């Protein structure tokens, strides 16, 4: 027993309720160790952004290659066949069938054998030769508005390309001027690639959606893990304050979130080749703001739901549905009915989707984004306030 001579008692250095950076960092340090040693958290932190970037990013840009297109060639001349061939040659369409009647076109669309049909009129070459122009009808199935919009863009591109070449040939054959009023109109449409544009538009949205999902998933585990593993009871018997717990737990995930954001944004810029016209500071500030909102929401869920599985499922539900449906990342918000548009104001990722698009494509700075930035700030304030009040050092 003589081996147990105790050092003199020390008074804790800080008074009660004051924020102690030491305790805050101790929580952060512990959290980092735990994430590092928990395969599930590590996978969410590092693999999920990668997988989702591939899934969502390529989902968006691959799905609309090889849109099945039927051709109803009423003329079946060398020119008309060349035109039909052009659609396929561009790579966006796959010629799924050559059909012989309007009836067959309807049936094929009903069977979903094709999403679009190009109808070449019987007098196609004759009208081209005599007047230098001919109508070409393209019918689309509008059930999947998103794909159809993009496919129409492709079709316009192809048509523009075809008419451009035909016009050049017509001009050469008729010895007329190489430029006519119509050609000047058509020219930009060849370059204005609707398909690529939609990808530029969607990829920044994908980044926002991924960060919303991953961020909330990460923090949704953090408090529930302590409840589930039985470490909470001892933790709340120490002088640590609820603020220190919250800040200490959010800090490491903020750093992970910044890392994930950097990864996704670099992938958007360099892998998906979305042009970046904005400035780095705006990107950093708005991303940090968005991460705070997302992480605090996950934390809030984690405090409320005391099992890890439950918390992560609630987090998925709360982020996934509204984010994918109402953030405007695929379904344009201005085409939604007014009540749903109003609802989408509640969906925080929509602000970040808007911001990222504007920063990437328009090069907007903070000043130009005052609306959505204030939206995010308001969200951050409310969510942090709620999160700060949610956690009590009580078992009941």
């Amino acid at each position, binding site marked *: *027993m003589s*081996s*147990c*001579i*105790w*050092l*003199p*008692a*020390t008074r*804790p*250095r*800080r008074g*009660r*309720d004051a924020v*102690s950076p*030491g*305790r805050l*960092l*101790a929580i952060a*340090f*512990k959290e980092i*160790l*735990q994430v590092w*040693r*928990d395969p599930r958290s590590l996978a969410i932190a590092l693999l999920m952004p990668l997988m989702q970037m591939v899934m969502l990013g390529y989902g968006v840009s691959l799905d609309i290659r090889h849109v099945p297109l039927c051709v109803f060639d009423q003329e079946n001349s060398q020119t008309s066949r060349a035109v039909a061939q052009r659609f396929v040659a561009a790579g966006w369409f796959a010629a799924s069938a050559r059909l012989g009647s309007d009836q067959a076109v309807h049936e094929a669309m009903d069977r979903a054998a094709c999403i679009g049909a190009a109808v070449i009129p019987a007098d196609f070459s004759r009208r081209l030769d005599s007047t230098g122009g001919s109508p070409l009808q393209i019918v689309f199935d509008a059930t999947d508005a998103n794909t159809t919009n993009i496919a129409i863009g492709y079709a316009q591109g192809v048509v523009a390309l075809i008419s451009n070449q035909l016009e050049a040939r017509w001009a050469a054959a008729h010895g007329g001027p190489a430029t006519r009023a119509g050609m000047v109109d058509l020219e930009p449409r060849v370059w204005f690639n609707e398909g690529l544009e939609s990808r530029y538009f969607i990829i920044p949205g994908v980044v926002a959606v991924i960060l919303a999902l991953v961020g909330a998933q990460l923090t949704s585990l953090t408090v529930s893990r302590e409840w589930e*593993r*039985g*470490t*909470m*009871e*001892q*933790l*709340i*018997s*120490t*002088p*640590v*304050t609820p603020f220190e717990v919250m800040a200490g737990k959010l800090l490491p995930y903020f750093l992970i979130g910044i890392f994930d954001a950097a990864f996704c944004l670099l992938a958007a810029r360099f892998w998906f080749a979305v042009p970046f016209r904005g400035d780095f500071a705006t990107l950093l500030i708005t991303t940090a703001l968005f991460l705070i909102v997302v992480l605090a929401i996950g934390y809030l869920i984690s405090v409320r739901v005391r099992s890890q599985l439950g918390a992560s499922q609630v987090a998925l539900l709360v982020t996934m549905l509204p984010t994918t449906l109402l953030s405007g990342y695929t379904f344009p918000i201005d085409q939604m009915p007014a009540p749903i548009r109003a609802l989408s104001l509640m969906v925080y990722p929509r602000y970040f989707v808007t911001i990222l698009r504007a920063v990437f494509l328009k090069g907007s700075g903070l000043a130009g984004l005052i609306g959505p930035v204030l939206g995010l700030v308001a969200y951050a304030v409310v969510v942090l306030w709620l999160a700060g009040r949610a956690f009590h*050092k*009580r*078992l*009941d």
Partner: protein
Amino acid sequence: MTAAAMAPAAVMVDRVSRRFGAVEAVREVSFTVAPGEIFGLVGPDGAGKTTLMRILAGVLSPDAGAVALDGIDVRAAPEQTKLHLSYMPQRFGLYEDMTVAENIFFYATLFAVRARERRARSAQLLAAAGLEAFSNRLAGQLSGGMKQKLGLVCALIHTPRVLLLDEPTTGVDPVSRRDFWAILYGLRESGVTILLSTAYMDEAERCSRLALLHQGRIRALDTPARLKQAMPGALLALTGPDPRALRDALAGAPGVLGLLLMGDRVHVRVDEPEGRMPALHARLAARGLAAATMARIDPGIEDVFVALLGSGAAP
């Protein structure tokens, strides 16, 4: 005890009650613990020990009553009492995915222990607990006994004035229990107040005072010696080849207040030992159990417990 009576009690519990739905887990419990005491809570599962510990630790609120540690009201200033308190929950509460050293570092930092002091104390405590060699082992990979000792090390890395231990040695091997108690005795020397619950009667005997808890109420509270003195009746130990048969044979015999099977013996509580022995011998002989030997013994805490509460309440 006069000095202790003048100083504020290290732990003061005044008519504390707590219910969970229909269950009254703790009912009007009152006691005080003097500085430097090792105070034991004994009672069967569901007696309310854990609930009481949690209320003292400030992690659960009582429905009624007051609790003060070192004169500071736990309900009014829970955070202030937590500065001078260490609580070891019944369920292992440390981080299994962190090493021994990391857990110690974590709790030292939460209690603002300076680095130099942390190193000195942690070396001393790990040595006392026999854990020096396991500094870098994950807490989850320690044996049950080592886990509990690590819990104690973390609880003592700052110098608490009050140490709350909820069944700290349940499921712990005898060697670890000995280490554990050596540390507790050492602490008492330095004036730390210890309140522990236990399911082991030999441990209960080591406490300076004991509260016997049953169905949320304190049924008896005194030093182990006086509790034993106060037991109504006296105790005979009965030894024979078939203890169960012995017990059954004496059930309902005149003067027998209680029977308790203790391993290979039967404890017989009688109103008057010398006077009753011949009749008891005769009763056994009549049932073919004449080979049994009978001797007067001093009661243990368990006997006291059973005498107070009936055999169904044995912890």
